[in-house]
Structures are given as structure tokens and as C-alpha cells.
């Protein structure tokens, strides 16, 4: 008999197989084919796609993409850490209301919100009009189509993904530990350095990963807000599929990106394990 439990599992697994495993397998397969202008990808199997990934130009894109994402992640962390800290001080009810308020803009599609940023940052946008009107600047600032605009967009879209894991880390941190640190003469700065940061490090790492990894692929942000040089890895992949029509290379690039992300997740997992073993964060002592 097909129990409900089994039905749910089968449905979930089929969904995963069709929507996740099959496409990834196809991408993996495509990455080993030879590009062809008419049939997109043909025999024979080759590693050409992967060798192209290591061309100097793509290494440059990789580095600039890494740079943009890293800066965006850092800004998210600097904004998100105090934000999550303050939020964790509220009662659970207030905290949930504030979280909903924070998530509210995210009910709008991120593409539309990216266009909204364009309106804010543009030559005749909100910021420039305001600053000109207030007489602070004489000429409009050139913000749109720069790295600044891309980072701005990435931070705006990805900030909640930093805040959420941080809040859960702060929630786990018992207030008694902070009192113990005060009791042992730790100043506010010392409490941050020796207690808050080490004990929220799983949240910091998780937040950085789920901001950093998607940031590298958010091609539309770079497309809409960035200049000619502000390229993300996502842009390269998108161009290979839609413009250059070199599917094997696009696929090889995608696979490379997945491998890089996988390695980073592995690193996170190891770091988390290390911290937990050091501290026994999830044992009965807390």
C-alpha cells in the first residue's frame, strides 16, 4: 500500500530528479561536447570548454567578479552584524515583526527592484536630484554603470540572506555568557572580539557564503547597473549561452562555478565542525 509518507517522499524525490539532477547532468554532459553554431553541441567529447575557462581574459573576469562579490559580502556583513545583534535584543514577537518588515520588499521581484535602483542612482535620480537641490554638489554624480552601482545592487538584494543566519546565531548565544564576560572585566570591545564574534562565527560564515556565492552569478544586476567592465561570472555564462552560443563553454564555466561553490561549502562545513568541536556549541552545556 502506498502510504502518505511514502507518497510525499516519492513526489519530492521525483521533483528533485526532474528539476535538479537531470538539468545538472545535462549541463555536465554539454560541457564535454564540441561547440557547433548550428546544432549548439556535437560530438566528439573534448575538454576544450574547460581549457577555455583558464584563458587570461576569463581569469580576469573571475577575479573582478570575485572582487565585486567579496566587497558586497563584506558590506553585507558590516551592516548585517550590528543589525542582527540589535534585532536579537528584542522580544521574539517584536523580532518577528521586524523581520517581516525587513523581508517585505522582497515580495517584489528582484529584477524590478534592480530597475528601481537604477532610478535612484541615475543622473537625474533620487540621490542626484536631492544632492543638487540641497546645493551639496554642482554636477550630478556618476553612480550608475559603475562597480559602485553593482555592489549597491548586490548588497541591497542580498542583505537579508546575511541577516537571517546571523540572527539565528545571536539567538543561540546565551545572555549568561555575555554577563559572564562582563563579570570577568571584559570591555564592550573585548566582548565583541572574544565572545560575540567567535560564538556567532557559524552564522557569519553561513551568511557570507549565501551572500557571496549567489552574488557571483547575479548577471542581471551587472547587466542593468554595471558598466562595461563590471562583469560577474553569471554574465560570462549568460553570454556564452545567449550571445556567443558556445554552449559547451558556458556549461564548462557553470560546472567550474559549481565546483568552486562546492569547495567553499566544504570549507564552511569543516570550519563549523571545528568550531563546534572546540566549543561544543550544541551540547547540553548551553
Amino acid at each position: 500500500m502506498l502510504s502518505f509518507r511514502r507518497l510525499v517522499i516519492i513526489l519530492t524525490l521525483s521533483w528533485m530528479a526532474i528539476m535538479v539532477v537531470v538539468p545538472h547532468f545535462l549541463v555536465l554532459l554539454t560541457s564535454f561536447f564540441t561547440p557547433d553554431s548550428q546544432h549548439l553541441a556535437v560530438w566528439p567529447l573534448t575538454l576544450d570548454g574547460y581549457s577555455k575557462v583558464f584563458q587570461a581574459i576569463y581569469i580576469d573576469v573571475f577575479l573582478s567578479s570575485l572582487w565585486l562579490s567579496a566587497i558586497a559580502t563584506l558590506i553585507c556583513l558590516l551592516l548585517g552584524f550590528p543589525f542582527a545583534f540589535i534585532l536579537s535584543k528584542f522580544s521574539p514577537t517584536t523580532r518577528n515583526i521586524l523581520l517581516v518588515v525587513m523581508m517585505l520588499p522582497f515580495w517584489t521581484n528582484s529584477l524590478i527592484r534592480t530597475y528601481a535602483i537604477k532610478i535612484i542612482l541615475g543622473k537625474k535620480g533620487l540621490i542626484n536630484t536631492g544632492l543638487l537641490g540641497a546645493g551639496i554638489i554642482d554636477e550630478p554624480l556618476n553612480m550608475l554603470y559603475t562597480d559602485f552601482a553593482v555592489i549597491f545592487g548586490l548588497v541591497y538584494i542580498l542583505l537579508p540572506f546575511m541577516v537571517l543566519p546571523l540572527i539565528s546565531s545571536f539567538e543561540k548565544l546565551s545572555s549568561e555568557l555575555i554577563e559572564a564576560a562582563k563579570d570577568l572585566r571584559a570591555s564592550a570591545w573585548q566582548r565583541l572580539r572574544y565572545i560575540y564574534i567567535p560564538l556567532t562565527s557559524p552564522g557569519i560564515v553561513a551568511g557570507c557564503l549565501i551572500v557571496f556565492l549567489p552574488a557571483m552569478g547575479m548577471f542581471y544586476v551587472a547587466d542593468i547597473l554595471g558598466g562595461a567592465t563590471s562583469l560577474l561570472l553569471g554574465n560570462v555564462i549568460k553570454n556564452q549561452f545567449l550571445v556567443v552560443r558556445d554552449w559547451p563553454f558556458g556549461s564548462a564555466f557553470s560546472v567550474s562555478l559549481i565546483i568552486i561553490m562546492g569547495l567553499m561549502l566544504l570549507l564552511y562545513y569543516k570550519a563549523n565542525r571545528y568550531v563546534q568541536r572546540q566549543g561544543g556549541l550544541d551540547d547540553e552545556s548551553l
Partner: protein
Amino acid sequence: MSDKSVLLAFNNVSKRFDSSDILVDFNLDIYDGEFFTILGPSGCGKTTVLRLIAGFERTNDGVITIDGKAVNDIPAEQRPVNTVFQSYALFPHMNVEQNIAFGLKMTGVPKAEIQQRVTEALELVKLSGFEKRSPSQLSGGQKQRVAIARAVVMRPRLLLLDESLSALDHKLRQQMQMELKQMQRRLGITFVYVTHDQEEALSMSDRILVMNNGQAQQIGTPREIYEQPSNLFIARFIGEINVFDGTVIEKVNEFSYLVDIGGVSKKVRCDQRLQENDPVHVMVRPEDLRIEYLEDKPQGRSGFMGIVVERSYTGQTLDSLIDLGEGRMIQSSEFFNEDDPDFDYSIRQKVWVDWVEGWEHVIKKSAI
């Protein structure tokens, strides 16, 4: 107590949480070098007192002084006070050694000195060799010891202990009580211990403050508190006690009165001044009762006839529940008599209940 100097004082301290009063005009003096226990049921405000001393809470009114200096505006991290937390609050990401060294490191003590003091503290709590263990690898008793070491290594003027032994099992607890007491004598640090366990309070303290509903009920030595409880709440909270309601018949001499207890007149001692017809509580501890196998009221003695309704053997004592009639039940607790191996009661047996004159404690009924 005049030879002792006051280390910590509460002067008319009030504390409110969300408009509910926890402490109102609370006064307290704690002397330098004593083992002071704050005893009370949960919710009586004892932990709030401790947190006010530590600096985790701020007073709404009144002044707290340490060494004569007001500390109201001094944050926790600058007070000469350390706390042993109820759940130990060991830093999970540091090993035993790092936990103990934490406070010294924060205050910039030189490395060599930190090393030496940590080693000493570990010896004090008998945990030498556990330096590199993480808190998650320690048993409850060991965590407790690390928490104590982490606090005493700071050489505070006052060491605050918040129900610190309540999580330990009975045997370990008794052992830790002894060790704490010894440690306190050796270090000469003033201990302020908060507990709801009266046995613990009696066995460790130099002085005890009994609290209820945010108010100090009585301060005194364990003996004073146990033998001369100033009201019914304390009498009942500190161990078992039998309470007889009575009325004063007449004064015999300065501290002695004749009291009528349900038709039986007994001569009792009372330090308070009593008037004729004053209603009083005559209280007798179970272990102070004398029980005799007697079928009938003996002539010329004032006591009570009763029937044994329950008996239980505890190993050291024989505890019995005796019905004196008219709904009065009393408890007695007797040590075994070596000469009488068959010493025991049978249920429904008639007995004669009495106590040695002067072993009772009498308070006026109004004083609740």
C-alpha cells in the same frame, strides 16, 4: 559583630520590573570575610539582590555600596565582584585553562602571572591536569569547579554564587558544600550564596538572610534562624516544624508563661513580652518531641495523647506522623536507641507526646 567592617550595603534599595515591585526599601549589610547566604523560595527576589550586586541590574532607588563607595553607576565589568553562575556559563569555545585565564587576560595581567594564577586556581578546585579539556568534555561537578576557579582567580572582594550547587546530585552537592566552606575560609573572600535549599544554607553559612516576597524576613546565624525563627513563614521554610496554637493564661516569671494549648496547659519560654489572652504559636521541631509508649494520660504531667498514623524508617531516624485529635497532626523524628533494637511503632498505637520545657519556640500570632 561590631568588630567586623561592612563590605557591602544596600540602603533603601528598590527594584521594579515592568511596574511589578521586586524589592522595596531593601536594606542589607554584609561583613567582610563572611559566608553570607540569601535563602528564600523561588521568586522571592534573592537572585535580583545578587544581580544588583554584580551590576547586571540597576537599582530604581536607593544606594548600593561596596567598601563604602556607591557602585550604582559602576558597570559590572568594573566592580570588584565575580559571579559563579547557576548554569556555570563557561565559554564553550575556550578550554578550561582559557576560561579561567579569561578575566586576567581582559585586565592585562602579564602572561607569566596568568599562568601561575591559573595553575593555583586549578589546584584549589582539584582540577589540575584538565587544562586542555573543553567544557563539553566535563561533568556537571567539574564544570562547577571550573566556574568557581574562573571567579576566584580574579581575587574579588565578593564572590557571588547563584544556586551554584542546585544542578549537582545529592552526594556531590554535600561534598561541594564542604569544599566551598573550606575554600572560603582559606581565601578569606566574602561569599554571597543564593539558594532555596535550607539545608545547604544552614550547613555552610556564617549568617543567613531569609527572604520572602522581596522582603527580608530575618537575618541571623544558622542557629538563630533554625531555633528562633521570627515568624511562621521562616519556621516552616527552614525545616519541618510542629505548630501548636495556644493562648497565654498567665505570666510565670520574666521569660516564662503558662499557655493553654487545646485544653492542655504548658509552661513555655518566650523572649517576647506577652499579655494574658495573647494568641501564640508554640513551635517544636520534630526531633525535639519526646514520644512514650503509654496507654493512658500519666498523672501530673502536661502533654498530649496521640495515635501513630504513619511511620517511616529513614536509616538514621524513625519518623512518625501522630494524630493528636481535632485535626491536629504532628511529626516526630527520633534517633534510634542503641539499647533498644526493637524500637519501632505500630500503626494505631497510642503514644504520649511531650517535650522538654524550653525546647519550644513561641511567637505571637500576629507576627506573621
